């Protein structure tokens, strides 16, 4: 760029004399100031574990943000400034997440942070983002019951994943008996509490619900799979709703396959199993088991096909899969770009106020919108596992579902709403017309 304009200057000297030379000089000056502006970049923080237990899931999200920044810079950046990624590694260590977040905001002066996976890591960085008034985009499906001013939740709330999945099983598969199996931490426990309340409200009896928790990384599933088999032989159609997380899934599915639990008899619908997780297993015995997400790689759509092509070209790996949290980052990133362009500033307060109402296309053909409760609208898909590790969409919601920050199924939260536009409050009680504030 610069060398070309110097070349222009040289050419002008030889051909047109002083007048042209002045113009050339000005051109050179312009390109100099341009170069100076390029130094002044917008910094984007990436807070995903690159080592430790969660590296398996989070590394891909780091790559996604780097890819999105690269694409955006090719288009000229944001507000005439280039984006620059600042990547840190919180190493699957929850307190370290808070330290690294502080480092990103105070030392590196990032304008926005994309990060976290587990709920506990999000809870750990929350106070930092509040104190230093910065912005976090959180891309993973989670248990809800939260709406913070500094956080934008681009993953699914329970009403955008768990509840539609259960509805599907009730209607399409006529399921009458339910196993709620999860890993023992906050997301499965809250989701199962919501599901249990929902199932009971639909007339499912207590004895037709079996709830089971296992430790992180549980690998011996023999007893539990046998229990599920036994529970399923009570003469009623049974399904398993799985909030089993991370590494425990592979041995779980292997045991299901080996003990001969077929999807056509006892389907398993999972909320944490995507294309990435299936990449580690032979999926032939699992054909027909289900997953509920807001995005599947197999969805046929020009936007999605382009994204997959560009992503595989960027990672130089033609087999690299895409998944739901990646799409959440794509939506969140584009929303942030739009908001920054709208207010022509990266000032946290201005961007936070601008974000609600911003729309960005998702990769499945719709347009997602940021809601006043800092959650977004998303379509819900039910996919069946295919023999090649991909999903075949068998059902989807007719329209986009707005995310509920507070579950309507739980007594403690059914009157609460998050509204950062009108009420300026994350937990506004519509019955008492009061904001509960940050105490709860």
């Amino acid at each position, binding site marked *: 760029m610069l060398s070309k304009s110097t070349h222009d200057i040289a050419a002008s000297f030889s051909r047109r004399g002083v007048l042209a030379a002045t113009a050339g000089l000005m051109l050179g000056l312009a390109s100099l100031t341009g170069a100076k502006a390029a130094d002044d970049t917008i910094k984007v923080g990436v807070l995903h574990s690159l080592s430790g237990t969660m590296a398996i899931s989070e590394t891909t999200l780091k790559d996604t943000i780097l890819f999105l920044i690269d694409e955006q810079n090719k288009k000229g950046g944001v507000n005439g400034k280039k984006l620059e990624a600042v990547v840190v590694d919180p190493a699957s260590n929850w307190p370290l997440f808070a330290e690294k977040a502080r480092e990103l905001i105070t030392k590196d002066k990032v304008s926005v942070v994309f990060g976290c996976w587990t709920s506990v890591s999000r809870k750990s960085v929350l106070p930092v983002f509040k104190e230093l008034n910065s912005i976090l985009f959180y891309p993973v499906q989670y248990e809800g019951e939260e709406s913070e001013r500094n956080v934008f939740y681009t993953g699914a709330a329970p009403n955008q994943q768990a509840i539609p999945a259960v509805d599907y099983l009730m209607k399409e598969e006529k399921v009458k008996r339910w196993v709620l199996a999860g890993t023992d931490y906050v997301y499965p426990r809250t989701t199962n509490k919501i599901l249990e309340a929902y199932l009971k409200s639909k007339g499912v009896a207590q004895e037709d619900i079996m709830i089971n928790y296992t430790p992180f990384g549980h690998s011996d599933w023999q007893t539990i799979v046998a229990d599920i088999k036994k529970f399923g032989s009570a*003469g009623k159609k049974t399904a398993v709703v799985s909030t089993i997380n991370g590494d425990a899934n592979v041995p779980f599915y292997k045991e299901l396959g080996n003990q001969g639990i077929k999807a056509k008899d006892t389907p398993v619908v999972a909320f944490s199993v995507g294309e990435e997780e299936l*990449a580690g297993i032979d999926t032939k015995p699992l054909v027909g088991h289900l997953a509920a997400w807001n995005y599947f790689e197999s969805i046929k759509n020009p936007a999605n096909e382009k994204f997959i092509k560009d992503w595989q070209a960027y990672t130089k790996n033609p087999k690299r899969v895409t998944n739901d949290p990646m799409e959440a980052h794509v939506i969140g990133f584009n929303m942030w770009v739009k908001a920054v362009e709208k207010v022509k500033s990266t000032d946290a307060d201005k961007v936070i106020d601008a974000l609600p109402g911003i729309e960005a296309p998702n990769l499945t053909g719709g347009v997602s919108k940021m809601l006043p409760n800092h959650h977004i609208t998303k379509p819900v898909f039910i996919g069946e596992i295919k023999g090649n590790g991909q999903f075949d969409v068998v059902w989807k919601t007719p329209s986009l579902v707005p995310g509920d920050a507070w579950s309507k199924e739980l007594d403690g939260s059914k009157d609460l709403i998050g509204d950062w536009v009108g009420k300026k409050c994350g937990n506004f009680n519509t019955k008492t017309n009061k904001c509960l504030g940050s105490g709860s």
Partner: protein
Amino acid sequence: MPAHLSARLRAFALSLLLIAFALPAFAGPFEDGVAKFANDDFSDTEEAIGVVASSGNKLAFPIISALQDGRLMADPDSKKVYVTGTDGKSIDAATGEPVASVPDSASAVRLNNRLRRSVDAAIGGLTLQSPDIGTRLQAAQSVFKSHEETALEAVDGALAKETNKSVKAALGDARAAILLFKSDATEVEKLEAVATLKVRGDQEALALLTGMGDQPASVTKAAASAISSIQSSLAVWSGVQNAWYGLSLGSVLLLAAIGLAITFGVMGVINMAHGEMVMIGAYTTFVVQEVIRTRYPGLFDYSLLIAVPLAFLVAGAIGVLIERSIIRFLYGRPLETLLATWGLSLVLQQAVRTMFGPTNREVGNPSWMSGAFELGQITITYNRLWILVFTLAVFAILLAMLRYTALGLEMRAVTQNRRMAASMGIATSRVDALTFGLGSGIAGIAGVALSQIDNVSPNLGQSYIIDSFMVVVFGGVGNLWGTLVGAFTLGIANKFLEPVAGAVLGKIAILVLIILFIQKRPRGLFALKGRAVEA
């Protein structure tokens, strides 16, 4: 009536007749049914399955079985449906005429779980009289599962001709299941059905009996007694099942701990990198399988046999390297050893993460390690069974090695009294390196087996390190037999606690029990006696 009008009417009637005659040639109910496959709509596909299965057309079986295997291709534009044979040749599903090629716009007809059940039931009905015994047995079982009234005639027909004993029994069960749910079956038939299911006595029979709905009083009574008899026999079997699961878990614990029993138990090195040796073994299996997959696909079933010696060598070599470069400077300084090996474990994890990526790697199960068989009322999976056999074999070989080989003798001599061994002319530092290599190599072998039941990821080792130390300490440091008994005791105790207390509480309870036990017997189950212990 004017003549021209009646002529017109006649012509109209004639044309109607013509249409009526002409249509069946193109589209009878069977052809209509087949065309529905092309609608890409699950309820249309379900209707089509019903129509085709009950049509009696000889194409019914090829169509339905192609649907099951994803070989039924439908063109949404022309509404034509094709069956692609396993030999690559295609026919038009409606007419049976061979076609040169299936158009590119055609795609496989999609199924969901509900449809898969219909397909199974349809195939069951269609293959009840197949010449192959295995197919007949499968057909009878799928009819038993679906117990559709429409299949009764076919079952009766097949039952009359059947000569094979086990197929006959399966058909009898299927007939009983159908009669139990048939609303117009007589009371006698239903009582017979209940008796048949009582003899069958498994969970599926129990499911049918509990879910049968309203029945005459005598049938309900008979069913209640059958249910309680099945339940009590299943309760006994569930005890057997827990014991088996315990043995299986014990074998995994033993396999993971056995290498540590050498490095920690015999040498006294607190080796926190032990889990990473297991992980390296698992990754060796992955690499072996990758090579086999790309170069020699026919050898896939032998991949584990090839991986075992390689994993031993790779992990063993790394073990020797670690001993020579780090651990030998730290003998007698347990705290430093602990920190150094822990740091080493992080280094190894990150190295593997950098080389192979952070995501899980797929290690396939060879055919002989997939699936399960029924033993009485319990399901035994082949992979667990083989791991148990393999663990015991590794244990026996290791024991024999320690007892009968020169290296084994030297190892025992060095651990019992290092200075005396040295003065007898044993090169103790060489023995140290080899012992550590042996322990690491065996951990590598464990990784081959564990790759069959767990994730092959950089974190694989971490999940076994605590359990391994627990087993070795509980069993008694320095005693291989103690490790064996410790592993199986913990495994079985865990599996009997799990159904009662749940997986999380069960694990906590085991830890508490071990803490109490160690208070009472600090040296574990089988304590070594003598001077070596004090050294």
